[in-house]
């Protein structure tokens, strides 16, 4: 029986390892190799090996693209946190039989592809769309608002798509919060604000951090939302990499951008990892 358990364990672990090696490590190794290659008119990749692709990245335009992506992703994360925290808190502390229904409602949008939901946002925001029609009909405005193809619509789309990634880790975290600690704080004379600042906030910090990471990382690279809702007027990191591979046919440079980006994200994850205590690490 014991031996049987072990083989099952090894099989499932082996499958996961194999999966990660074939579909994550191997492709990344190939991209890393490609980032040191040269390219010419007839070859996508060729020798000699070079560092030139990395030197090319030290270019004002790429730094600008990175800064822009970083700025958009940070803004989106902050908005998601401000919207998501009170939301998650309310649901988690709620004593209602509808609680599981409300949690289900957060999950339901995932049943539809994010791309399709982004297209449906276009229908909401366009000049003849639902929001403008309602506002016109009620007489609040007399001319359609130019909502679509602006920075506002990009932010609406990003927050809409990524909010659940903020809410779900927060929910799990807040639900585990020990009520007795809050009661004790109140008994000892802390007001609501102090209780929140000194007790609730520090205890839910792991949820805030993992939610923020889950929102920030995709927000850096989701290229179709700025494309569809912003009218492709600016280039973000995702588009930049895609263009180097498909339009400019410069695979080495595209690979170098991907590698640098992956490294930056890895560093951010490490910082996050170190910022947590041992106990929280175990909880993850």
């Amino acid at each position, binding site marked *: 029986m014991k031996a049987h358990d072990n083989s099952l364990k090894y099989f499932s672990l082996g499958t996961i390892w194999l999966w990660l090696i074939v579909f994550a490590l191997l492709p990344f190794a190939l991209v890393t190799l490609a980032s040191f290659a040269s390219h010419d008119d007839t070859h996508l990749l060729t020798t000699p090996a070079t560092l030139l692709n990395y030197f090319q990245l030290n270019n004002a335009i790429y730094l600008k693209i990175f800064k822009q992506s970083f700025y958009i992703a940070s803004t989106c994360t902050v908005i998601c946190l401000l919207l998501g925290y009170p939301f998650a808190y309310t649901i988690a502390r709620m004593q209602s039989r509808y609680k599981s229904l409300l949690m289900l409602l957060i999950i339901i949008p995932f049943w539809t592809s994010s791309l399709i939901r982004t297209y449906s946002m276009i229908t909401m925001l366009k000049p003849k769309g639902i929001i403008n029609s309602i506002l016109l009909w009620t007489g609040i405005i007399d001319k359609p608002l130019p909502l679509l193809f602006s920075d506002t619509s990009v932010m609406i789309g990003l927050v809409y798509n990524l909010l659940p990634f903020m809410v779900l880790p927060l929910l799990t975290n807040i639900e585990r919060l020990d009520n007795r600690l809050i009661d004790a704080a109140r008994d000892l004379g802390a007001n609501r604000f102090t209780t929140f600042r000194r007790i609730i906030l520090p205890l839910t910090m792991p949820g805030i951090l993992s939610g923020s990471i889950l929102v920030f990382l995709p927000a850096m690279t989701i290229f179709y939302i700025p494309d569809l809702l912003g009218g492709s*007027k600016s280039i973000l990191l995702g588009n930049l990499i895609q263009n180097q591979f498909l339009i400019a046919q410069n695979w080495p440079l595209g690979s170098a951008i991907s590698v640098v980006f992956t490294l930056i994200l890895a560093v951010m994850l490490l910082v996050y990892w170190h910022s947590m205590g041992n106990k929280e690490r175990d909880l993850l």
Partner: protein
Amino acid sequence: MTSLFRFVVVMIAFFVTQPLFAAENVVNVYTWSEEIPHFVIAQFEKETGIKVNYSTFDSNEIMYAKLRANKNAGYDLVEPSSYFVERMQHQHMLLTLDKTKLLNAKNLDPAFLNRAYDPRNEYSIPFIWGITGIFLNKNYYNEQDAEQWKNLLDKKYANQLMFLDDSREVFSMALRMLGYSINDSNPEHIHQAYLKLKTLMPNVKLFNSEAIISILIDEDATVGMAWNGDLYKAHQENNKLQFVYPKDGFEIWVDNFVMLKTAPHPENAYKFLDFLMRPEIAKAVSMNIHYSTANLAARNLLPPEIKNNPALYPTQATLSHGEFQTDVGDQAHVLFEKYWEQLKMGG
């Protein structure tokens, strides 16, 4: 351990093998999306017993990258645009066509034969063509407001214009504004075109290549750049739309069929290509996708409201302002892409 090793070998073999259908009675066709309707493919399969494996792409660059990344992708017939025919020929990817196997080539429109991108049509057969021009919505603008590309620089179009999300198309327009050829590869002229586009950027509302028709119909954008076939389609839902052939010149694009040197089923590919050039088949394709056919016999079969529609079949006098796209070389491509990035980042 050995079974794990065997598993890995099988997995790797699975990913690197050639398409398994190489030996079967099939033809592998790779075209622009929605180009060939299913009933046309079904008819060919019924007549010949040859199965058509049909896949599609939505940009020349994606098609080209895919073919270059995997030289043995197994495609027989591919449908690049004119300038990519030239580019692929420079890379020695194309088979010289045996015209004795393409008897229906006699139906082709001479206006689209022997053009600079393939001077004796040794490698390519023109199939569908169109114009990149100006569209406007008559509820918002008059035709006189936008007779030329240059007019779009006017301040009254601030944050109004739509352009195709395609560096080559947008640079072609800027080159025409300056009076240069759309195929100009002089770096100095391309730089001037970039500066021109920079002054145009405040007027741009969006770049889009995927959802043009719904944007036109719903008036999400009311003036800008569009392909004539898309405008024709949108016009059926919104009759305020108007297509304008810019007086300062425009681009004529042609989608052509070519055969790859690596084609595993050349004989079947000839049969399918010859089938597509039958007048009634070319007519069915053209009516299905609402673009103009390069097949003269098919064009004569079209209903009068289509073949006499100036948005789809302009007069020779109008067409004389147009230019066929040719390959500008890798150096110009790199420049287009570099300036395109700068343009979008406002740098």
